[in-house]
């Protein structure tokens, strides 16, 4: 017999959870599929210099074990023409944040529960319109998904369609975005994109099937596909994790180059602090569904404040460090169902104070751009 522990749920409990979940999910699904006028989800940016503003986003998964708050009150801004890196361990909600922006969450289980995602879209006539993506019905999402916001996925092996050639898949992007495009237009655009991402023999790649290309080449094709619609924001979700280091260096170099060429911002999601340091202007550190620290890359790397950020940086062996034992953060990430109401990092933190058993710490502003969510720094603010 299975041993009874805190994770064990009886059949009755599971049915009770499912009943409650169904009620909420039905409501949210109906809201997602409603018909409404554009004016309902038009809004204004709080700072016109930003391209994307996420405010207090809550994305939940309604599972049989209970509600998983994968993204729990996340707020972040992406300025125009900047690269914002989101860093965190697996399960910290960094991918779910990007999926929420793209509205790619797997329904009915995954739902945006509350919050705002304001996106500054550029219309074809050059005017700017601000949409609240979280409120947009799913039938209107094509206004921004793919053409205004594009995504580069982690697995270049599985995100291309194996039964179509690279050319067909690239052309499709142009056909969807420009209704009056001819075949020749589409091919010309695709070739331009393949050249842009540094593919040496674009004619050959255009006619090739995905399985004929290596991982690095496929990732280049994915980037070309993302760029084909001239997006304002590119979300790169672990773009180099599946690649070798020398190929990773190529792709990162390419992304850096492209950022100067295209007029857009990049939201870079990764678990590798090295990549973040090299690519990002702003860094957001996430832990267990919450943003725990954010600031410019220099602030985060030279003056990390949250014990988790400090630990993360110390626990990574680098080529220059030469110590005997690595610093390690004890324990594991807490169970995503039934999160405690005190600081989620308390059990693993080596700098706990009495206050940590109290409420979850709120965001404290340390400098105009640097925010941290930790009780350790509350005193400083009161004094200063």
């Amino acid at each position: 017999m299975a041993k009874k522990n805190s994770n064990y749920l009886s059949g009755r409990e599971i049915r009770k959870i499912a009943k409650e979940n169904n009620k909420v999910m039905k409501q949210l699904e109906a809201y997602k599929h409603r018909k409404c006028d554009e004016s309902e989800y038009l809004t204004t940016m709080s700072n016109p210099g930003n391209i994307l503003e996420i405010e207090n986003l809550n994305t939940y998964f309604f599972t049989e074990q209970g509600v998983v708050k994968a993204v729990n009150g996340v707020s972040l801004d992406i300025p125009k023409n900047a690269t914002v890196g989101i860093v965190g361990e697996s399960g910290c909600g960094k991918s779910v944040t990007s999926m929420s922006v793209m509205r790619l969450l797997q329904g009915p289980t995954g739902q945006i529960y509350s919050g705002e995602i304001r996106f500054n879209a550029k219309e074809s006539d050059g005017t700017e319109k601000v949409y609240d993506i979280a409120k947009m019905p799913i039938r209107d999402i094509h206004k921004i998904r793919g053409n205004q916001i594009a995504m580069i996925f982690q697995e270049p092996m599985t995100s291309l369609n194996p039964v179509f050639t690279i050319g067909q898949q690239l052309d499709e992007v142009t056909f969807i975005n420009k209704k009056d495009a001819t075949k020749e237009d589409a091919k010309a655009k695709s070739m331009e994109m393949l050249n842009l991402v540094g593919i040496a023999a674009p004619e050959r790649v255009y006619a090739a099937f995905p399985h004929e290309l290596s991982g690095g080449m496929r990732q280049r094709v994915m980037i070309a596909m993302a760029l084909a619609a001239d997006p304002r924001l590119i979300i790169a979700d672990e773009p180099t994790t599946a690649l070798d280091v020398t190929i990773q260096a190529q792709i990162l170099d390419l992304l850096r180059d492209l950022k100067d060429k295209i007029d857009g911002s990049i939201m870079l999601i990764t678990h590798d602090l090295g990549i973040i340091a090299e690519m990002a202007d702003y860094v957001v550190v996430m832990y267990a569904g919450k943003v725990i620290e954010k600031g410019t890359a220099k602030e985060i790397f030279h003056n990390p404040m949250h014990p988790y950020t400090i630990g993360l940086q110390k626990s990574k062996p680098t080529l220059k460090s030469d110590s005997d034992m690595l610093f390690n953060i004890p324990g594991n990430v807490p169970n995503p169902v039934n999160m405690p109401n005190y600081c989620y990092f308390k059990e693993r933190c080596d700098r706990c104070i009495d206050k940590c058993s109290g409420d979850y710490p709120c965001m404290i502003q340390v400098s105009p751009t640097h925010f941290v969510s930790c009780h350790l720094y509350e005193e400083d603010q009161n004094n200063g």
Partner: protein
Amino acid sequence: MAEEKVIENFDPEVILEVKNLRKSFPLKKTLTGKVTQELIAVDDVSFQLKAGETLGIVGESGCGKTTLGRAILKLHQPTGGRIIFEGKDITDYNSKQMREIRKKMQIIFQDPYSSLPPRDTVGGILSEPVEVHKIVPKEKVKDYVLDLMDKCGLRDYYYERYPHEFSGGQRQRICIARALSVNPKLVICDEPVSALDVSIQAQIINLLKKLQQDMGLTYVFISHDLSVVKYISDKIGVMYLGSMVEFGTKEDIFSNPLHPYTQALFSAIPHPDPDVKMNRIILKGDIPSPANPPKGCRFHTRCPHAKDICKEVAPEYKDYGNGHCAACHLLD
């Protein structure tokens, strides 16, 4: 039964010696079974490893580092070359003889999610090798296993639990405990931390280091992550397309990398400091297919310093002093 060969003049400090090891896999066969095309996964690799040392093997995917690790354990029968373990040539040992040797050499696999039997408890997983190899008397097995679990940072009440109840880091601890349960001398770690998060990686690396000090283990540490390899290794071997391109002590390899591939590999690692702007050597193109490797030096298709001779003649693997070996025409 093959006769036991004792190697003469064998340095007793050397626990493992690999001589010209070669492993190829047949790709195409004729009807009569003759191999017409083969993939050479490991080609002419030689090194010596002293007891208590850690050898790090780095390289990109498809360079043959995993095959090398498995060939040392004879999980793949080598196609050529010799493996000498503790002064005995084990290359031609049969499975019965290998069983005795396996007590002394163990492996930790990359993916802790698929390398544990889902239907057995932690206690069962850890006691099985102890019972099979009769490490301790039957009545002491449980105490022995609990002691081992304590050493590996597993709490005693995990004994009755199943692998699915654990996170990746805990599972890797179980895998480590299982490998160490038979008191091995040599442990092959095949990418033991690459499936884990950064904060968990540090825990596992520290554990491996501590266990090495306590139990006098010798590691062959296979990884694609240079910073991890640098941290744990005494000696480092760099592999490219099946062959060892450079081998030496950690200090030599890192302060004075000889082979252009090693140099490029080092410069490709992103450094976690926004102010450090590295002069990166970016290699052009992809790794060629190991089934159809380029002629001459295998690296010449991507090498920034390739000369004409590189395209025709394969460079010799030579010692450039202090056991620092490399294979490159530029060094001549």
